[in-house]
């Protein structure tokens, strides 16, 4: 699963769902892969205002990836004066779209439940006593 996805996911338990402590899920023992994908400036531009930037920063730090800017980049930071993708956009693209979690765990900061990731697929099914 590409890293962008982690910004949409929280703990599946109803008792954690809306709690700030449950988001973002913390990657543990995560094996990452980087696969170059086509630059998708339209998507990044569209999705950027919808992202929880602090959660992005937390996840990148925990994964030992290069630090993100302190604030969400502004739309005008995404293109150079001649309309080409800026370095900021390229960096964001590598992080959000080219980087993926292949295996490991996603851990809830509130209840401690661990969701396994195998072959790039996270499993959010809960045992009965947690539903």
């Amino acid at each position, binding site marked *: *699963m590409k890293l962008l996805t982690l910004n949409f996911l929280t703990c599946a338990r109803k008792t954690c769902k809306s709690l700030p402590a449950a*988001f973002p899920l913390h990657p543990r023992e995560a094996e990452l892969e980087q696969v170059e994908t086509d630059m998708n400036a339209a998507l990044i531009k569209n999705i950027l205002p919808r992202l*929880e930037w602090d959660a992005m920063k937390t996840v990148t730090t925990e994964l030992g990836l290069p630090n993100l800017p302190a604030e969400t980049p502004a739309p005008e930071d995404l293109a150079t004066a001649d309309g080409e993708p800026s370095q900021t956009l390229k960096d964001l693209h590598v992080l959000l779209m080219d980087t993926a979690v292949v295996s490991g765990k996603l851990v809830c900061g509130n209840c401690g439940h661990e969701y396994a990731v195998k072959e790039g697929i996270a499993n959010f*099914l809960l045992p009965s*006593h947690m539903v």
Partner: protein
Amino acid sequence: MDYLIRFVQMHESFRQAETDAIADLEGLQMQWLHYSADAPFAIIRFTGPTGETTSAARTLIARSILATSIHELWGTGPDYPTLHTSIRALTSAQWPAYQHTSFRFTIDSYHSSRPLASQHTLIESFAYMSFTGPIAMRNPANHFTVFEESRLDAPTPHRLYFGRLVGASGRKQALVKYNLKKRTYIATTSMDAELSLVTANLAQAAAGKLIYDPFMGTGSFPLACAHFGATVFGSDLDGRSIRGQGARSVKANFEQYATASNYLGGFVADLTNTPLRHTRTLDGIICDPPYGVREGLKVLGSTRVALKEVVYLSDGTPAHLGANYIPPKKGYRFERMLDDVLSFAAEGLVEGGRLCMWMPVAGAGEEAEYEIPRHPALRLVSECTQDFNKWSRRLLTYARCADGEVDADALLAYRARRSVLSEAEIGPEVKTTANNLNAFRKRYFEGFRERSAESRCD
């Protein structure tokens, strides 16, 4: 000038909805001057402020799946003398511009056919336009078509059109490319290429958009959305369907179509306990929920009291931490699932974002009895029907209203009824038989209908 859209004569109730969705997505204003479910020819007019209608027509047709081409309408009439009069009146001033270019004439007869000799005679009757350019069967500069519309078994056509081709759709290429027979990974429930692509059009899938399928299966809808440039992800209660086997997986399908860049990934989850945050991030949600036709609906949980506590294995470790643990699932009712999908969509879609949801209905055609599920924050955009013998299925498309358009009282009432309903279903103290659930459901829907009449945001 008006335009003739050449549709395919199938999936009739989807055709206008698809065209309307594309027009809306591309910002084209148009009106239907003539449309009949019984014929493949429809007439439209662009009504927007931009004068350049040829490019509008090409944009409108390019991604259509249920239309094959669009033509400038040069004339129309119930018989040939009237058609010729109409063509002279509408277009004689334009003929000189086409006089020396290469051209081709064809006849497109619906519900009838003409022998070759009769076709030649017919084409000769258009000689008054005096085109003197070379006739080119391949890649002519201008391609003119006589459209003949007949009723089944009628001796002569009752409506005629004459048009100049301005654009063709990608229907043929897309259907060949996404044909299930040539797809790496499919299952018996995979939606066919044609209706998957139509659904993606109704969801207004496009570059830059983010679209999610909560019942992804083998990925038919996300694949179709990625075809139109959208970025997609999905989930499924059954991890095996995402993972597939060996080289056959959802991911491999995206690789086959060279859209792996558009695929964020899949995860295993249940819509009633979704890990997706309550936040408005999605441009589209597209799904064909599993309605339990084969195996009964299942969600996570169990009605067995013993399973509400942690289960320990004989070695003292909790069962749910085991590598091969399979969570128990309980029955789940159809209406509850529809409600869950609508509520999820209302909470997850951005303003104007679309939900496309398929649902099966007992009975076909006019006889089918069913109620369209509603949510105060979702406006029904279109309802399309695919009829089978004794049942049919509907594709319901909704758009997320702007928050300011949602009736706050209706929303509160909806949520209150929903929580009462789920209490009644999952509370251990309430014995629910199918009958009292149905009666409850009836009141539930009736109460909501009265409310929704005043709260509709359209």
